[in-house]
């Protein structure tokens, strides 16, 4: 497998570096490679260390939540809920478990719960005018093509059953090995591989149909 861009990517803009006046930030280079000391400090309730964790993983969590949730607009709320639960549980975190595997385990739980709740209240209807306003007007043909491709990928992924999609995302997008996903989910590797294959096949079929 080629290298995944799964390691936390930090933006080097000044706004990102100073986003919390009350909580001093780590230098991006330090925060991207979260060391065990940062996590140990966060375990003891150090809010600065926790801020470094949020900075390092927030974008990845949003990406995962948007791909997992039936209502992607809930992604920010779900990620916030995940980090709050993480912070409360941090004192009991055992460092023998990989930190980001634990984080995505909590996030996966939150997303599944949210999807269940959303399904229960799925009588929500989309306001057509509102939906129309959300579609950006793109003049550049290349940008328009990219936008259409992006939408096609998201629509195709949304059609993949949730139980296959989650494993697919954990493995291919977040870069967890099958061994790690097995530890996170309790599902045997053979079953995981089958789920990833089914998700891949479905994604390929939908995209091939749509762009023929």
């Amino acid at each position, binding site marked *: 497998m080629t290298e995944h861009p799964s390691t936390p990517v930090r933006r080097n803009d000044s706004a990102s570096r100073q986003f919390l006046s009350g909580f001093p930030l780590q230098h991006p280079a330090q925060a991207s490679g979260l060391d065990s000391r940062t996590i140990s400090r966060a375990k003891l309730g150090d*809010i600065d260390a926790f801020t470094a964790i949020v900075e390092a993983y927030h974008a990845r969590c949003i990406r995962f939540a948007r791909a997992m949730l039936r209502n992607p607009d809930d992604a920010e709320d779900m990620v916030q809920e995940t980090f709050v639960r993480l912070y*409360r549980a941090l004192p009991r975190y055992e460092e023998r478990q990989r930190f980001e595997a634990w984080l995505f385990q909590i996030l996966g739980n939150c997303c599944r719960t949210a999807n269940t709740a959303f399904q229960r209240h799925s009588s929500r209807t989309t306001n057509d005018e509102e939906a129309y306003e959300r579609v950006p007007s793109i003049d550049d043909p290349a940008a328009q093509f990219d936008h259409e491709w992006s939408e096609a990928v998201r629509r195709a992924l949304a059609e993949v059953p949730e139980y296959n999609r989650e494993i697919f995302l954990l493995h291919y997008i977040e870069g967890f090995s099958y061994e790690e996903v097995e530890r996170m989910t309790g599902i045997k590797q053979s079953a995981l591989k089958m789920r990833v294959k089914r998700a891949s096949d479905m994604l390929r079929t939908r995209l091939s149909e749509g762009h023929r």
Partner: protein
Amino acid sequence: MSDAERDPVLRRALDELRKLPPADVGAMRRVVSAAAAARVTPFDSDPGMSSPRRGRSVRVWMVVGIAAASAFVGFALRGAWTSRSHAASTAASSGAPSTAPSIVRTAASTELDAAPVQQPFVFNNSRAHKVFVVGDFNRWDPTATPMTRSSDGELWSTVIPVVPGRHMYAFMVDDSLFTLDPNAPKTRDPDLGAEGSIIIVGRP
């Protein structure tokens, strides 16, 4: 390269899905604030052991919540317990300004119920060099509560004030080994997957 990444369509889809959203400064700020405000443990309710790190907003909202609960209890009890609880229920239900401590006492029935009790912890390990008890009552601080070795070198013990209620705890052996109490029931935190020992602290 995996099968999926050998397929040009899938490879392109993966590239698309791997794109990270732009950093949302406001959202990150809200996350940290929410987490800081939400970290409340039974340890916080013990004024003698409270930490300055905890969010002040939570404390205010807790007092408001307790005040509302105490007002409700005050209304319910006023008829049946007129002679005994007249003063407390009047203070709680009249809506007149009152200090937080008096409201807390009403909700907790008696001040004694909420006061920490001396709780012993005992751990058997002859090979350990140092042992600390960690739990929600001391914010899982691995340096807060050292245990003392018995003269025969077998047992480690300590007695600390703990607020009555259900608490999760464990022993930290030699600074690194998180060990459950073999003599106590255990539970699993749904978020952690990790287990902790359970103790119910109450008044004798």
